[in-house]
């Protein structure tokens, strides 16, 4: 019998950092190629934009809370929903998920950094620049024509509204360039993640032994190549239309506006899975630890993830049922949309089976996971409703759609992200987040979420279209919109608890130690926060739960895998 060292990664010769002049700290962060620092900068960038996008959402809800409101002008409202959508997808969701991926993937596979550290830094900075560029439009986009400021064409920017004739000035160009550059950054980071996973695993970390988080980031990054690239191509075409006089989406020269829809949604739908797969990844790591059981059905989970990756490429046109694609295309996309709920269902059952019979600990990360399970299920059910073409003909472009996808993004992705923050914060900072504040955050946010997004379905069913800046009284929409607006107060309060908790715990939180949750994956085998080189000596693993093997040498997992 030979032996392997798992916790040798902990270097106890480390001395506490001396305090240094602030300028040298700033310089270090600006020039860093360390995956943990870049990951944290990604997360910080996303949190800043989360506040900005959140303020935009609140402004829109104030405007819509009562009929005939004149809180913001129609022009400003168009800019608000465009900026809110673009910000939340490209500059909140993508950076925060890539940030956690950057931070966790090398630690979980027992590597010292990503495969291409400098590309990693480049990808981050180009994404950050893209976000700044998008918001610079507020001051820079009036241009020579003095027309427009921020982009106001909607986050999917349908042709021909984006043509030079209908969107003069530079606002649309800021949108195009920002999205294009953020795409370059995303492809760079995705390339890095895939290469890291394939080429940098520690000894013994076979593909079949990788933590599920790593698997899901592999699938997600693979999906980014075939998802973001079409959007990049479409943005190049749009820019050529606007500046070189090309005719891709110019209907007067025989071009097709529907082609833009196809190109956008070939990006747009798989993008949902690009965002939800890392959320699944967090749930996969957190649920077993707080149920004190190994994940149920590891191979099925991997197969379902890869399956989702493939099927998600064939469902995009369910965003376009109202365009009139013909019976054959409609049938195909309805069918594909129904099929994708199968692997997703497998995942939900596996999480339930993991919790089943476990010694469940309802710490804050687990609370958010439970919230995720319920809400993601409901989001999936309204997804099936909208995925049926006849139903979609009735409710396409209504608030029902808005409620559905916010249920996925807020109720699913954001809840999983909060779980991730509470779970890995001790690893990142060395201190626990406050459980009391965490519970306040959870309950306020759950109440706010359900007030806002449960009741948002109803004005949709009553025929309220999305993207209107106001409505007249007496249509039966006003009470519902007021409730939706009140929900945002609770969500904001919850979010404030969260932000306060992040800051307070950094200084006052309980010392975490290297493994506060008694978890099983490699990131918990090194100090919190990990040193620059992660592991003093590279670990070697023998099963999917190396730290279980370490803590229970009499009954290691490797006997059963």
């Amino acid at each position, binding site marked *: *019998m*030979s*032996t*392997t*060292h*798992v*916790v*040798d990664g*902990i270097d*106890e010769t480390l001395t506490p950092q001396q305090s240094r002049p602030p300028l040298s700290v700033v310089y270090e962060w600006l020039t860093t190629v360390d995956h943990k620092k870049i990951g944290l900068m990604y997360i910080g960038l996303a949190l800043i934009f989360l506040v900005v996008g959140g303020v935009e959402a609140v402004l829109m809800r104030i405007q819509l809370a009562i009929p005939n409101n004149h809180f913001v002008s129609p022009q400003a409202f168009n800019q608000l929903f465009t900026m809110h959508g673009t910000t939340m997808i490209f500059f909140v969701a993508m950076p925060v998920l890539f940030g956690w991926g950057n931070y966790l993937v090398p630690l979980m596979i027992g590597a010292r950094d990503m*495969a*291409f550290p400098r590309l990693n830094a480049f990808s981050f900075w180009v994404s950050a620049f893209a976000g700044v560029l998008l918001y610079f439009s507020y001051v820079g986009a009036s241009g020579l024509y003095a027309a427009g400021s921020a982009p106001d064409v909607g986050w999917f920017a349908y042709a021909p509204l984006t043509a030079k004739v209908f969107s003069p000035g530079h606002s649309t160009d800021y949108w195009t360039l920002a999205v294009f550059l953020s795409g370059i950054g995303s*492809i760079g980071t*995705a*390339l*890095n993640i*895939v*290469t890291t996973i*394939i*080429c*940098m*695993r520690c*000894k*013994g970390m076979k593909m079949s032994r990788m933590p599920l988080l790593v698997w899901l980031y592999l699938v997600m990054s*693979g999906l*980014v*190549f*075939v*998802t*973001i*690239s*079409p959007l*990049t*191509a*479409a943005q*190049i*075409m749009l820019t*050529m239309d606007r500046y*070189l*006089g*090309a*005719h*891709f989406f110019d209907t007067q*020269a*025989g*071009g*097709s506006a529907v*082609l833009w829809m196809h*190109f956008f949604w*070939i990006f747009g739908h798989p993008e949902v899975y690009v965002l939800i797969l890392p959320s699944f990844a967090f749930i996969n790591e957190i649920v077993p630890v707080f149920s004190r059981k190994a994940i149920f059905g590891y191979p099925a989970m991997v197969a379902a993830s890869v399956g989702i990756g493939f099927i998600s490429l064939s469902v995009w046109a369910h965003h376009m049922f109202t365009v009139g694609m013909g019976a054959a295309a409609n049938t195909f996309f309805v069918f594909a949309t129904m099929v994708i709920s199968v692997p997703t269902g497998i995942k939900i059952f596996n999480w339930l089976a993991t919790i089943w019979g476990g010694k469940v600990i309802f710490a804050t990360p687990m609370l958010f996971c439970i919230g995720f399970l319920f809400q993601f299920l409901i989001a999936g059910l309204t997804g099936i409703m909208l995925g049926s073409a006849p139903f979609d003909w009735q409710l396409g472009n209504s608030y029902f759609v808005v409620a559905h996808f916010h249920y996925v993004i807020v109720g699913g992705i954001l809840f999983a992200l909060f779980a991730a923050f509470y779970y890995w914060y001790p690893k990142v900072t060395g201190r626990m987040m406050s459980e009391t504040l965490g519970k306040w955050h959870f309950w306020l946010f759950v109440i706010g979420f359900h007030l806002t997004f449960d009741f948002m379905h109803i004005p949709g069913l009553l025929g309220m279209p999305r993207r209107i800046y106001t409505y007249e009284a007496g249509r039966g929409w006003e009470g519902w919109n007021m409730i939706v607006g009140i929900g945002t107060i609770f969500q904001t309060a919850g979010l404030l608890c969260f932000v306060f908790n992040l800051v307070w715990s950094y200084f006052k939180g309980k010392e975490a130690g290297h493994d506060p949750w008694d978890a099983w994956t490699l990131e918990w085998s090194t100090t919190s926060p990990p040193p620059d080189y992660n592991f*003093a000596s590279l670990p070697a693993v*023998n099963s999917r739960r*190396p730290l279980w*093997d*370490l803590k229970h*040498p009499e009954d*290691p997992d*490797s*006997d059963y895998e």
Partner: protein
Amino acid sequence: MRDAATIPIASPQETPWKLPYRGTVGMACLIVAESAIFVIFVVAYIFYMGKSLTGPTPMQVLELPIFGTICLLSSSITVHFAVAALRKGKLRGCTGWTAGTVLLGSIFLITTGREWYHLIYDEGLTIQTNLFGTTYYSLVGLHATHVVVGLIMLSLVLGFSLFGLVKEEHSEKLETLSLYWHFVDAVWVVVFTVVYVLGR
């Protein structure tokens, strides 16, 4: 260091732990992403085939770029020989084959330039003329951009190797670059088929 940090292993590691070279995997990822971009441009080309409202049409103005195609496809072979030579440590052979690749790629680029000159000045076809012009210049132009990038990289290799800086241990890196160049050639096969064969 902690003690008791050892766990029993059922069977000792038999095979040595060897993972793929990161350059190859990274380039493969880049190729997948680039392919998706090209797919969108090719789809746009096919979608707009024959839908131009005005002339000129591909049938009237396009000629098969046989010579340029032969040069570009041959450059795939020469770059392969360059890698093979470097792997065997034949540094001069590598320099020679790289120079050949740069030369052939440049010839291809010149033929494309001449074709565009002819189309713009003799036939009056620009990107603004009609849908054919729009899709043709963007697809062929996107490919030509990739050729230019590849040529810059290959020229760098050529420059380094003329100064004797390219060594046997760089063969994996050159191979990564050659993967990109093969990809550019493969894309040309698709572009050639779509634009010059099916499109006419």
